[in-house]
């Protein structure tokens, strides 16, 4: 169930390029933490180090530690595949498996974990779709392809797929950037409910969204293009948006740059 994330001294590289530099932060269980900052500041890269997706990119490399409760995700004996089974992820563009039905999309992760009993799958699929506020819209067409849903529904399907395996943490990489305002609202509502069960980290370009959904906000910035991104500050969302302790944060939030 929901776990604490404790990052210390984390840097990520693309080949020889240092994309993020020496980041340390703590994310409490059952909270929503938002990452904001200008494009290229490394917030998505940082997010992808939290489930070891960064190293999938050719040349991707990570230094530092990420503790999930007390287990280091980058320990030498840790299998990245098993990390990704406990840290779920939702992407910028909805990406349901196009060849699978709605049901099979949600069950995909469970089947990977070797759970195949029909009755058990039925229950979890319904529970996950309900949890993603999608059940009522799709319960009569579970056998239809997931790619036939609207963009917002597809994204909620992806959330259902991610939470079906009961991850400890749920990472969301700009989950609403490809969606219209109404679908965005639906997802934001959903996030508010999900945080009772999961530790949620969300990257967003939309500062109102960060203000609406998150408990804590982290501001990332980079000194110049070609320089590594850094964590400038992380604090209670209310404080970041009203009275941040660093001038750069205030400049960014008030729209003076970025």
């Amino acid at each position: 169930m929901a776990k604490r994330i404790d990052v210390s001294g984390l840097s990520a590289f693309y080949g020889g390029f240092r994309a993020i530099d020496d980041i340390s932060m703590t994310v409490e269980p059952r909270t929503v933490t938002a990452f904001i900052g200008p494009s290229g500041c490394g917030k998505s890269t940082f997010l992808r180090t939290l489930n070891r997706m960064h190293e999938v990119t050719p040349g991707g490399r990570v230094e530092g530690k990420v503790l999930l409760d007390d287990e280091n995700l980058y320990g030498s004996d840790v299998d990245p595949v098993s990390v990704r089974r406990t840290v779920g992820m939702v992407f910028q563009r909805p990406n349901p498996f196009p060849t699978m039905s709605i049901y099979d999309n949600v069950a995909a992760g469970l089947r990977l974990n070797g759970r195949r009993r029909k009755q058990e799958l039925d229950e979890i699929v319904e529970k996950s779709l309900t949890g993603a506020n999608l059940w009522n819209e799709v319960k009569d067409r579970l056998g239809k392809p997931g790619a036939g849903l609207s963009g917002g529904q597809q994204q909620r399907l992806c959330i259902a797929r991610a939470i079906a395996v009961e991850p400890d943490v749920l990472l969301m990489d700009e989950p609403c950037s490809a969606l219209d305002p109404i679908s965005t609202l639906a997802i934001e509502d959903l996030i508010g409910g999900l945080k009772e069960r999961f530790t949620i980290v969300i990257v967003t370009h939309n500062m109102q969204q960060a203000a609406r959904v998150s408990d804590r906000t982290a501001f990332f910035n980079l000194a110049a293009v070609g320089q590594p991104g850094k964590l400038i500050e992380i604090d209670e969302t209310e404080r970041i948006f009203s009275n941040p302790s660093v001038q750069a944060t205030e400049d960014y939030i008030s729209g003076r740059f970025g």
Partner: protein
Amino acid sequence: MDMTQTADAPPPSPPQPSAKPETEVRERPALRAGDRLFLGLSGGSGILLLVLMAAIAGFLSYRAVNAISQDHGNFFTTFEWNTDTTPPVFGIAVLAFGTIVSSIIAMAVAVPVSIGIALFITHYAHRRIASPLAYVVDLLAAVPSIVYGLWGALFLVPHMNGLDLWLDRYFGWTYVFDQSTPGSAARSLFTVSILLAIMIVPIITNVSREVFRQVPRAHQEAALALGATRWEVVRLSVLPFARSGIISASMLGLGRALGETMAVATVLSSSSVLSLHLLDPEGGTFAQNIASHFGEATNFGRDALIAGGLVLFVITLIVNGAARLIIARRKEYSGANA
């Protein structure tokens, strides 16, 4: 242009072309001429293709009917191919059997191997190995079939004995792999099948590789983020997305296997015996039959060979149609709309 013509109707007057309308009138037809040219070229090519297909079918049918009408055997069930005897007796039973069986075996061997190579190149191998490997496969696809034929006859045939003996010993009970005279030279339908498999692997690999390469990163990351291993990523996102592409690639390969001529003619010790013992040097294929007999055939003999060619043509059409049906049936689930 149309507007001015209909509105100002009759007078095709010379005073009309003042400076401004002149340029307008000139500009628009110029564009249209380009459009019309393009339409003519593309539409013409399309129609030309249909005309060509019809011409080939018509030619084949015309000559074939001439031959079949004088055939004193049943064209579909007769084993021998004797067009010089009076009356002529010839049929395609052996050829159809040989063509279809050798192609099926070739596909059964080549498709999994090709998918494996293509996956290795796109998803497993390091880039430093993958690019040269892909290049070699490209080269193999360009080797002329007569070269494969010579290699098959001079290298593959003598080296098939070991495999043949092994199959005979352990799978002889299946009847199909029972060799009548164990250890005889392997100029058999089975050797032909293996050679065909080797020949179509490069084509199927190339096309599948391109398809695998197009699998969207987002689909693969979706699987990865669920905790899929590399093989599970392939199974969950790559193979389903590439399914119709794999079928198309296989059909290309099958087309080549069905129609392959020189390699088969060089390797196979042909006969008019329909033998289910695939390791025996018996049988024939449509294309091989034409290549072996065309040189010395009389006019009538050529018509008969063309009748055989027509059957091959029809088989190829049916195979391709079936493949399209398979692809179309699952369109709703194809990755194309995501």
